[in-house]
């Protein structure tokens, strides 16, 4: 696809992705909500930024981040060194998480719930280590061919059991932390890493083994925050 066609198709896609939501908010504004004009104007400017930003982002992910992540993922097993694979998977999982904007929002929530009993920085590191650990597990799973159903089931059974012992106010925050850690920048990076990694291994394919990294990465922080809640109370 030529650059021009690509831009045109992305603009079209983003327009159909965002405009329905914008339209509903505009209708609500005039019918019911009636926010102050400056706020509404700010929403319109925001919507324009969202649309422009998403077009640039999706094009950039397509031509830059996905091929880069896949090339890196495909190169990893060729080195033949397990520590290298573990090290790099850990590093990428960790770095992507500490920088994720949503994680910072989450730590503020936890701060609020726990009444400042735990330092925000420490929490960010706990979550990031949780994510990094599970990214490594996910890469090893691809390599060793361990069934993903067992990993997921074990992870979530642990979570369900922990949920009964976690102080009530920490439960929603813990589940939220699993979701927010995989934001828009982490997703293409981790996704491409797994897809590239599995694509060069004999007997594996991107379809049957390449996915699952994001799903596993979401388990770590939930367990981390629950344990932290129990320790605190």
């Amino acid at each position, binding site marked *: 696809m030529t650059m021009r066609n690509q831009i045109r198709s992305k603009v079209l896609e983003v327009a159909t992705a965002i405009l329905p939501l914008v339209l509903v908010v505009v209708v609500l504004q005039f019918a019911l909500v009636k926010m102050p004009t400056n706020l509404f104007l700010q*929403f319109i400017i925001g919507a324009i*930024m969202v649309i422009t930003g998403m077009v640039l982002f*999706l094009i950039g992910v397509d031509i830059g981040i996905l091929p880069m992540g896949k090339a890196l993922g495909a190169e990893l097993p060729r080195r033949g060194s397990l520590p290298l694979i573990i090290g790099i998977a850990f590093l990428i999982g960790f770095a992507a998480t500490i920088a994720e904007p949503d994680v910072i929002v989450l730590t503020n929530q936890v701060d609020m719930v726990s009444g400042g009993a735990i330092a925000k920085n420490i929490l960010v590191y706990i979550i990031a280590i949780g994510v990094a650990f599970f990214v490594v597990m996910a890469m090893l799973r691809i390599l060793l061919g361990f069934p993903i159903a067992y990993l997921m089931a074990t992870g979530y059974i642990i979570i369900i059991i922990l949920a009964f012992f976690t102080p009530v106010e920490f439960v929603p925050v813990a589940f939220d932390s699993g979701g927010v850690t995989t934001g828009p920048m982490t997703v293409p990076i981790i996704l491409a890493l797994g897809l590239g990694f599995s694509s060069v291994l004999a007997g594996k394919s991107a379809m049957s083994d390449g996915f699952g990294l994001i799903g*596993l990465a979401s388990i770590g922080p939930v367990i981390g925050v629950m344990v932290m809640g129990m320790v605190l109370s």
Partner: protein
Amino acid sequence: MNGITVWDGFGHTLLGIIEALAPLLVLFIIFQMTVLKLPRSYIFNLIKGSLLALVGLALFLQGVHIGFFPAGQAIGEMLGSIRFQWLLIPFGFMMGFLATWGEPAVRILSEQVEDASAGSIRKMVVLYTIAGGVALFIALGMAKIIYGVPLLWIIIPGYLLAIGMLRFSDKSIIAIAFDAGGVATGPMAVTFLMAIAVGIASSIQGRDPVIDGFGLIALIALAPILTILTLGLILRMKTRRKEEKNMAEMSLIVSIVRKGWGDKILQNSCKAGAEGGTIMFGRGVGVHEKQTILGIPIEPEKEIVLTVTNADETDAVLEEIVRTAELGKPGAGIAFVIPVEKVVGVVHRSDESCTI
């Protein structure tokens, strides 16, 4: 505050994205210099793409932050004081769908699934499945806030159901399902939907915005897991039915009839359960047609109809062909059935017959 703030905290967001991207970039450059050694123009494109993604994402997040977040709060507060609270449930369904529909990471995952599955799972199908799941669970989340249902009552049965479904699901679908749970909780959902939920919870009496408002994300993360696993089960049943179909014995009915009768045969055999047919033209002669003109035998034009049918439908179709083409009469033509060893390319569902 009366002004319009557009660039508040933009630098902070930009910095965060650079931090997330940096390790990938640095590692890639190290690999490039030591082993990969890809052509320079290719590298240039990759770097250009990454910069585009960086700027684009910063703009996107800033837009969500300054535009959608306050709008969500305002909408939530208004809705919390609405007289008919049950209205929140269909409203939540709509907002859940639209917000997920606009989530960039959901689109990236859907596209990668289509790519990796070589098109056998379409991007749009994945998108609808994820957005539909979130819609359903946001509706549920609204009911939870209105009626004060504890989060665990929804989350725990939900995850138990997911774990139960794992037994029957293919491993690639399992991986995609849990990935979908991660991507659905992107900035649009987290900021916009949560702002609405917190707004509602804080204007309904007796609801704690922290406990009732948050926790919505947990629902958003659970929803696509369940719907994608369901999609996987449906796809699996479909392929299994198709395979069974292909395994079934099939036969080929060849009917050679007078010119002009082929179309009629095709039509009627379809009604009798055939899934299609092919008409060929030929020439031939039988005992009842021994005619000559100037000593040259006349070979009347014929039409040959090939129909592949399931063994259990063969008799019905053959009977219909005999009736249609009046094969009982002399000189009308013949039809015969040949067993077929293998068939490739029959993809119709058995409950569907062809229409002409």
